[in-house]
């Protein structure tokens, strides 16, 4: 069930000139854009928001006519707005692409159930095909099982590796070679900041490029929201009354990312342009490094031909990252099973499950 935000009933009759939109000069300004502090009305906001994404898509040649594109759809605000806007722009500007919603069911009880319900409503609302792949299908493990075995502290590592491969594997099953995700300017700036704080300058290039392809994968990834502020994405969803799901994943982000995010939000409050400024800094770091070398805008390509010995997934190593993680888990799972099977109490739950329940209660 989706409840849209209420429409205002109080409308100002008399407006001062200073309250008018700085673009059309005829309607009441309702937001100030964080990018440039321009005060604009709702209709002009829709227009500039959509147009900027269109320009990002065109100037970076993100799509070609006839391309099949999977939107990594989580039911959250970013991917919901992405699916909506891509469909709209595809019709408005005739990109000629075929859009499929691609969802991964990690098997996180209570979180993924509700978010998948949202994606299913989005499928109806936007009339887009939806494909769901479960961790159970792809890996024979659910995220809940993984946490139970590996402990909650490590869950983000697993979540990160498995989720990334899952989208690629899902897309490969659909014979789609391009996955678009809802990563926005805030996410990107946050990653740039984290890489700088960690001294991980080598990762800057990948963290600011709009299109990438990871080693071991024939699937390219792109981020049409690279220059979109989180705040504007939420405002867009709000004014368009888009149906999205919003609850923190019970496996919360690692502390370092959380702190970096907090820091950025505080910077943004003082100087809203800092988010695109950080991205710009990240980009110029790369340019300086590449001086003298080739400076073609080329996407990083994968090593063709190598496949994981376990699962056959394209991988630069003998065994792919996911299989390596899962192999470690299998060992711990066997141990925990022995630990748990007390005669007479076959249904007893593992200590990890209890731990997790406790973790949940503190949220």
């Amino acid at each position, binding site marked *: 069930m989706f409840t849209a935000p209420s429409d205002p009933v109080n409308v100002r009759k008399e407006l001062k000139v200073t309250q008018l939109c700085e673009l059309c000069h005829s309607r009441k300004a309702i937001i100030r854009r964080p990018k440039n502090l321009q005060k604009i009305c709702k209709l002009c906001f829709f227009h500039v928001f959509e147009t900027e994404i269109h320009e990002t898509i065109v100037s970076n040649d993100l799509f070609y006519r006839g391309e099949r594109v999977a939107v990594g759809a*989580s039911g959250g605000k970013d*991917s919901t707005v992405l699916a909506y806007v891509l469909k709209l722009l595809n019709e408005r500007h005739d990109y000629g692409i075929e859009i499929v919603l691609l969802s991964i069911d990690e098997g996180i009880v209570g979180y993924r159930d509700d978010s998948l319900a949202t994606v299913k409503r989005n499928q109806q609302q936007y009339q887009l095909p939806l494909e769901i792949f479960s961790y159970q299908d792809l890996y024979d493990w659910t995220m809940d099982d993984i946490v139970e075995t590996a402990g909650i502290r490590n869950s983000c590592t697993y979540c990160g590796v498995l989720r990334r491969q899952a989208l690629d594997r899902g897309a490969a099953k659909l014979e789609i070679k391009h996955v678009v995700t*809802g990563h926005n300017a805030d996410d990107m700036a946050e990653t740039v900041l984290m890489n700088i704080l960690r001294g991980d300058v080598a990762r800057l290039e990948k963290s600011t490029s709009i299109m990438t392809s990871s080693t071991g994968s024939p699937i390219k990834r792109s981020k049409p929201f690279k220059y979109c502020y989180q705040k504007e994405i939420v405002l867009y969803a709000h004014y368009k009354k888009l149906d999205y799901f919003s609850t923190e994943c019970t496996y919360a982000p690692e502390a370092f990312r959380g702190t970096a995010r907090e820091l950025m939000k505080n910077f943004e409050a003082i100087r809203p342009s800092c988010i695109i400024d950080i991205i710009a800094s990240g980009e110029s770091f790369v340019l300086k490094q590449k001086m003298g070398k080739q400076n073609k805008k080329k996407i990083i390509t994968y090593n063709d031909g190598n496949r994981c010995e376990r699962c056959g997934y394209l991988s630069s190593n003998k065994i792919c990252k996911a299989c390596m993680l899962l192999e470690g888990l299998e060992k711990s799972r066997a141990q925990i099973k022995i630990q748990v099977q007390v005669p007479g109490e076959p249904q007893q739950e593992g200590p990890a499950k209890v731990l997790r329940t406790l973790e949940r209660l503190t949220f």
Partner: protein
Amino acid sequence: MVNVKVEFLGGLDAIFKKQRVHKLTLKKNNSDDEPVTVGDLIDYIVENMIEDKNDVEVFLQNGTVRAGILTLINDTDWELEGEKEYELEDGDIISFTSTLHGG
């Protein structure tokens, strides 16, 4: 005295007993005429509506609404309406939307 509607969106309802919409009647100093501001509303929310005091910092930071929560007064960003100084009128809709949770 003023009657307003307050909405907690984007997952923020989690700290308000999962209730998104709240209808409130607010009074300042027991007077019927004294204007009630958004600042007063924030105080009211913090004092009376957040059940678990540990959750206050989810909503409040340095005495104002936390960075990352979007505050709209009748669908207009409160930055354009004087923020905490805005005087509430009957029928106003104030919404607080978390932009932080779950992309």
